[in-house]
């Protein structure tokens, strides 16, 4: 009886969005009298940080700092329609709607600034630090603060914009299944290393090395947060979680976190993340949706690593110590 080490690999892709159901989201953007910006949505932040990313996308598009953008969301009286936060669609779909709304608002802002500076709006650009200036002549400038005041109190303009992103619904062709289930795909490859105790069937995840291609890392810290969390969830799916451990038998159903198992802090694997960026043609600043994908490749990589370690295949998730032990027993009997 011994601890045996093995490693396995898996590579996956993942569709962004839910074209098979139709995939619309809308956004509204307007400026306050002093040149701060409100983004109004009905999208839901599930804790992943949707509001922060939308603020950064709006800020990038208009040319202000992200802390000047406030996100007002998840209120059906004020926010325009959003299909929902799922299908890895938030950043991509809602982000595109925010870009369109912010672009329209920015155009009005530049027109007001042009009137104030007595130049053409097409000659103006933002510096990303709160100012608008003539291209190539940064000394001829006006602050966004003054521009917004002028719009509100002098020029009678509404610095605002409407944004809409819609992927029309794809209906699968009946006989061939020709369909367009998404617009772009994120990618991943994971190498997992495990120790398997061939006496107890217990699997210890030594390390997971994940490479993710996500289009564009719009906020690398938040990308890291999501990818590390997803990687943990993948491990949990592979080795721990189920509401029905003896499916299709319905016995032994977990009803709380004492019975429904997940890896705890002591079970965390050494996790390495490498991110590649191949911008999506239709992504907001190239971003794809990695939210779901990042929990997938660890599962088969671990199954393959367990085979590499002890030579048994567990083709039924989750790969519990009991299943490993039964397979080892069958292997020895054979």
């Amino acid at each position, binding site marked *: 009886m011994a601890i045996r080490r093995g490693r396995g690999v898996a590579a996956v892709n993942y569709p962004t969005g839910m074209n098979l159901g139709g995939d619309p989201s809308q956004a509204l953007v307007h400026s306050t009298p002093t040149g701060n910006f409100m983004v109004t949505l009905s999208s839901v932040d599930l804790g992943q940080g949707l509001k922060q990313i939308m603020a950064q996308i709006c800020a990038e598009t208009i040319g202000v700092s*992200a802390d000047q953008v406030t996100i007002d969301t998840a209120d059906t009286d004020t926010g325009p329609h959003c299909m929902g936060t*799922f299908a890895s669609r938030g950043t991509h779909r809602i982000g595109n709607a925010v870009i369109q709304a912010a672009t329209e608002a920015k155009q009005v802002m530049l027109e007001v600034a042009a009137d104030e500076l007595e130049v053409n709006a097409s000659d103006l650009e933002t510096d990303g630090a709160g100012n608008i200036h003539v291209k190539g002549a940064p000394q001829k400038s006006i602050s966004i603060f003054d521009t917004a005041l002028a719009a509100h109190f002098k020029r009678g303009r509404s610095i605002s914009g409407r944004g809409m992103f819609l992927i029309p619904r794809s209906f699968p062709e009946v006989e061939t299944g020709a369909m367009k289930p998404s617009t772009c795909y994120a*990618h991943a490859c994971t*190498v997992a290393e495990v120790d398997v105790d061939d006496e107890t069937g217990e699997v210890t995840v030594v390390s997971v090395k994940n490479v993710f291609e996500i289009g564009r890392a719009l*906020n*690398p810290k938040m990308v890291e947060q999501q990818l590390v969390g997803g990687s943990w969830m993948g491990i949990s799916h592979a080795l721990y979680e189920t509401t029905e451990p003896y499916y299709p038998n319905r016995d032994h159903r977990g009803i709380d976190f004492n019975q429904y198992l997940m890896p705890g802090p002591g079970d965390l694997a050494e996790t390495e993340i*490498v991110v590649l960026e*191949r911008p999506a043609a239709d992504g907001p600043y190239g971003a794809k949706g990695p939210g779901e994908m990042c929990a997938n490749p660890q599962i088969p990589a671990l199954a393959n690593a367990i085979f590499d370690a002890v030579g048994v295949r567990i*083709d039924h998730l989750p790969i519990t110590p009991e299943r490993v032990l039964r397979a080892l027993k069958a292997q020895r009997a054979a």
Partner: protein
Amino acid sequence: MMRLAKEYFADQRDDDLKQLGVGLQRSDVPGHVTGKTTYFADRNFPRMLHLKMVRSPHHHARIRSIDTSEAEKHPGVARVLTHKDVPHNVYTILILIQVGPEDEQVLAADKVRWKGEAVVAVLADSERAANEAAAKVKVDYEVLPAVFDMDEALAPGAPLVNEYHGNNYYTYDSGSHRKVRFGDVEQGFAQADFVLEETYRSSPIEQAPTETTGCIAVPEGNDRFTCYTNTQAMFFTLDNTSIILQMPGHKLHFVGGTVGGGFGGKVDVTVEPIAILAAKLTGRPVSFIYTREEEMQISSPRAAEKIVIKDGVMKDGRIVARYVKGYTDAGAYSRHSPYGAQKGAAHYPGPYTIPNVWADTYCVYTNRTPSSAMRGFGVTIADFALEVQMDKLARLISMDPLEFRFINAYRDGDMKAHRQPTEGAALIECMQEASKAANWPVAEKFLKMSSYKET
């Protein structure tokens, strides 16, 4: 812990962003870590009622009678609701995108089809009173044979789970399953050096959000209802509520906010309609929040799946044919499962170019907790099956598993089985980087490959 590998695809990016591409601190994080973030359940209203559901103790049973008289007399009880109180009691949530039929009862009228199905809603001044009164509801059941196994459910003579479908599978416009047909799969198997058929299975998985599903419905002075909810989709839930309650949408005001984790577990419309109905009928605010047990066993999990994959492979590593049958255990009702099952159909070749593909995906009904969306819906378990299958195929032909994937990896322009040309491929580069990061050597020719279309 994370590294951005900027050397890949550098020719496709202008790294000139100012507010993006930088790791700004999330503006909401200080609130989260200091306990100041407001969640829907942090609100309290005068005279608020608590809703507790009387649920089916049987997997499959006919309801002979429902007696709520003792429960109604229990101290603190304001109202007891049955199916008779629900204006449009038979519903299905994807009806909003024309995916019917309506197949589920908000409160069971004639039958229960899974253990835990909602039958009677009790409203009381306190959770304790609601629970005590719920225990006094008497439902007379005639227990029926139940089916839990997808193979048994699809076999002739199986008990019928859901009369609204007429069969124990969802009927697509393509019949009992969604089809993908590409190339000539039989010819592919005939030409293959080896054929490998394997079966993969998974058990249901709970989304396990920190915050359980719930809402608080408040009747307003202007004849509208405000619903504070942690749904993942505001208008999807509002519009479904409008149908179930036969109440115009303008009467409804949904307020969300930060949700304590969703993972797909909060896209079914299970609490809002009944809470708003209760608020309307009592004129009082109503709180309906799942216990942890309800979150684990009542709220929809990720479906169990069974996936059969048969592949034809050449000695040189090329996969020349793939045949897949995928089965999704929807439990007793559709919810989002018909969608997930067909999403899977398009996914089965995975990120590989395979010239001959045949995929059938089935959405199967059994007498268990309805399954629904979860992170990786229609894809996660498929990826498990596909990538373990890839490992087996590589070993079958004595090839390194990573090199085997390079040989089959899709590249820009390759036609996928669901007849979309590949765009923006990056699998090869991910594997090249993984080879380096994990010190898993592959032949030089694979490190020189590119996802770009050759010109």
